[in-house]
């Protein structure tokens, strides 16, 4: 029997054309009043002719995007074990409060006296962040984690310049996220990689050899991207500080320790916090995020503008720097307010007690997965792990089945794959982060599937893997062809 239907649909999975192909000729999905027809005042600039946009009615638009949505995996539909991404449940109260008109309809350039509630919210969130991290200040404006890294390194560079101590190197462990070296390069630092040791941690001896008085900072993710706590972090911090360098922490994995350990107590000088990870603002298919960066006392004066300060009962918005120390501005306006509202709602819902429980349950869930899947998959570094656990395909070598094959077979089993081939230090890495918002039953079902796939690989059931995914809305997509002849926009003269 043919598996092709007459219209290309497959049951509930609709073969949806591009918007431009739906164009029904001059339709408009918004009823706006008729313009008066006043003479333009364009100062001699010409009006444009056609744009090329399609015309589609509201019901067609709703159906189009609803059908598109149905082709996506999401946390709402299942466990999303992407390591280092912290795909946890997104509470809907957060979506409700961010839409309160007092937040949603406030303009960033209103006189500060008219937006005291907005400023209070940002200051309250800042207080939560500094308290949870044990740090002295926080720059709220970074738009995402990488933007927060940029802010942190700019502060460090400014502080070193103020000391008259120009340094040119940033150390980055080889297990680091790609954003770390990219950010260091943006600040014109030379990036030197520090190897990991056999325990999956920074190789302390190699770090010591790499450290000299030209090193501005080490960028360390802790827990690291192997899901392990960097046991030597306090020694590393001491060594950095006595050589005049700073410890920058990538806070992507803060979920493991929130409420249990304060980074400030570990010797961290600056750390960005991905509100879209630990504090559950939705990932939205790739953003927006928010990446406030907490700072130690020495770095606070160099924090970017704007800042919020309390002046008695009044919140003041500082947009210009009186002492000239602020390193500048990172973006327009004041930060990702919509993410701030959601994150504060999340924090208030959990409270000090709930946030600590978040970390503990996240760590317990990951260790449970580690215990259940040990044997089925190779464990490169022994546990306990923190909030994520790392496996590799080393013990499947003889089966001809690789991490990629396991990942695509997971799709057929109804799961989004784990993070794969990262961290780079482990060949065929599979990094699994279940998060605290999965029940034991949910994790058991997931582990059953993972064990089953490893068993099938060992049985030599190649077909199960090499044709996968077979049941997803799409089969494997040809990424090589996409990159070789890039088609990045739709054009009317191309066949559909």
């Amino acid at each position, binding site marked *: 029997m043919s598996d092709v239907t007459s219209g290309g649909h497959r049951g509930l999975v609709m073969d949806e054309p591009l*918007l431009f192909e739906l164009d029904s000729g001059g*339709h*408009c*999905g*918004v009823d*706006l009043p*008729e313009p008066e027809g006043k003479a333009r005042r*364009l*100062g001699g*600039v010409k009006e444009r002719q056609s*744009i090329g*946009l399609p*015309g589609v009615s509201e019901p067609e638009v709703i159906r189009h995007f609803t059908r*598109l949505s149905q082709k*996506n995996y999401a946390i*709402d*539909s299942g466990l999303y074990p992407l390591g280092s991404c912290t*795909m946890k449940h997104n509470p809907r109260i957060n979506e409700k409060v961010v839409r309160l008109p007092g937040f*949603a*309809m*406030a303009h*960033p350039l209103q*006189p500060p006296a008219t937006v005291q509630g907005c400023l209070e919210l940002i200051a*309250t969130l800042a207080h939560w962040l500094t308290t949870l991290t044990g740090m002295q200040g926080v720059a709220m404006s970074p*738009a*995402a*984690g990488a933007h927060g890294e940029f802010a942190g390194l700019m502060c460090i560079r400014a502080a070193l310049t103020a000391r008259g101590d120009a340094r040119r190197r940033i150390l980055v462990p080889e297990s680091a996220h*790609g*954003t770390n070296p*990219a950010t260091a390069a943006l600040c*014109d630092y030379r990036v030197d990689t520090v190897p990991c040791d056999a325990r999956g941690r920074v190789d302390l001896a190699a770090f010591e050899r790499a450290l000299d008085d030209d090193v501005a900072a080490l960028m360390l993710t802790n827990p690291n991207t192997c899901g392990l*706590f960097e046991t030597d972090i306090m020694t590393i911090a001491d060594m950095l500080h006595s050589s005049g360098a700073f410890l920058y922490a990538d806070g992507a994995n803060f979920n493991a320790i929130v409420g*249990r350990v304060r980074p400030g107590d570990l010797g961290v000088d600056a750390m960005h916090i991905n509100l879209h990870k630990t504090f559950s603002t939705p*990932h*939205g298919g*790739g953003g*927006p995020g928010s990446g406030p960066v907490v700072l130690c006392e020495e770095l606070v004066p160099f924090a970017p503008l704007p800042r919020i300060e309390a002046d008695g009962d009044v919140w003041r918005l500082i947009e210009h720097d009186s002492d000239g120390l602020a390193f500048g*501005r990172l*973006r*327009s*306006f004041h930060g*990702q307010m919509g993410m701030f509202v959601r994150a504060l709602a999340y924090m*208030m819902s*959990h*409270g000090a007690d709930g946030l600590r*429980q*978040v970390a*503990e349950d996240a760590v*317990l869930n990951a260790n449970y997965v580690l215990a259940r899947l040990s044997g089925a998959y190779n464990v490169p570094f022994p546990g*306990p792990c*923190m909030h994520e656990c790392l496996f590799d395909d080393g013990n499947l070598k003889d089966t001809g089945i690789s991490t990629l094959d396991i990942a695509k077979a997971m*799709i057929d089993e109804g799961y989004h*794959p784990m993070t794969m081939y990262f961290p780079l230090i482990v060949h065929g890495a599979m990094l699994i982060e279940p998060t605290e918002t999965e029940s034991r039953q949910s994790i058991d079902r997931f582990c059953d599937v993972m064990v089953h796939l490893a068993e099938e690989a060992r049985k030599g059931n190649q077909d199960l893997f090499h044709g996968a*995914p077979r049941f*997803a809305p*799409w089969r494997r997509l*040809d990424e090589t*062809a996409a990159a070789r002849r*890039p088609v*990045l926009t739709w054009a009317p003269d191309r066949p559909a």
Partner: protein
Amino acid sequence: MRYLPLTDSDRAAMLEVVGARSIDDLYGDVPQDVWCEELLDLPLHQGEIEVERALSAMAGRNLHGANAPFFLGCGAYRHHVPAAVDALIQRGEFLTSYTPYQPEISQGTLQMLFEFQTMVAMLTGMEVANASMYDGASAAAEAVLMASRVTRRRRAVVSGGLHPHYRDTVATYVRHADLDVVTLPTAVEETDLESQIDGSTACVIVQTPDFFGRLHDFSALAESCHSAGALLVVAVSEVVSLGLLTPPGEMGADIVVCEGQSLGNSLGFGGPYVGLFATRIRHVRQMPGRLAGETVDADGRRGWVLTLSTREQHIRREKATSNICTNSGLCALAFTIHLALLGEAGLARLASLNHEAAQRTMERLVAIEGVSTPNDGFFNEFTLELPRPARDVVDGLAERGILGGVPVSRFEPENGALANLMLVAATEMTTAAEIDTLGDALQEILS
């Protein structure tokens, strides 16, 4: 705690499987002398009722575009967002999905991004656009860095008409990039940009409608840039203007950056917004950010993937074109849905309504004695010259419950020449009653 599914008996059973006596065992790698033994000094957990009450109280302390006559713009605009936009972006399959790294189960996001990229290219008159940046200002900064990579030159000329936040963001991004930035003064008088272009110039960055609301045709400037081997970067801080005005691509721009907030996204006190970034196809490999591209699956069906990733940080690390990872995905979705609803005819009509609302507002305000405008042309925002410092006037209006505009001095408090200037914007949301209220109050304050 309503978000945590584990029960105490689950935890006990799981610890047993793990082989740990207590949760503390699992934190054994953390130096014990820094463990938080007590709960941190923050409030305890609260139910939805309490959280909503507390945050509603904060929201209630703000004046805003739904409870006050409102005329602010300056890179963020009060527009009508159709109800369908918000309903669709709250579908969990969009809201709670990750970056589409697994294309077989992310076609919804990928197809949408391809549609977004196409719309952005059409609006700006360019050949290719990426899958979004954080906002217009950071996109402008990335554009300057990109121009330097493309031309291998190290000098950027920044127009005095570029939004001050964009200008400051550019300055931050290039601080350590060994780039020489020439910034022309913020002034209502036109500055001569062409004389600043030389053989070392990587790019000239300009804006239309500019910070003062003036409109420009940069065709001649583009030619000057190109004959000197430099790129022209055009910023647009009000995307709706592209429904009416000649797009920068038709003027010869090489990179166009734009703030997309006006379509689909609320004011939200400044973010999250969505940066649009478009360029010529020949420069695509120097472009920052994610790109969705068309391909086929194993059955030959059309589909989309993230492509040209060798530009990006997760592959190229310190050699990447940018450090950007997370972008503005959901804001780009809102933008795409709003623009899909408007369509060609709707966007043109929306743009006309904005221009007319601004004209009506201007006509009322310049009729007040002592008030004038330096704007010859404008779209939906213009500059007013007042007989008194604009900051005092704006504060006086706010005391009357009117959000009347933005004093230019907010950006450069020390520049006396700007003190009496106020930026005023109007959109399709602006009512005749609001214009009257503002006009009467301004007249009263100035009399």
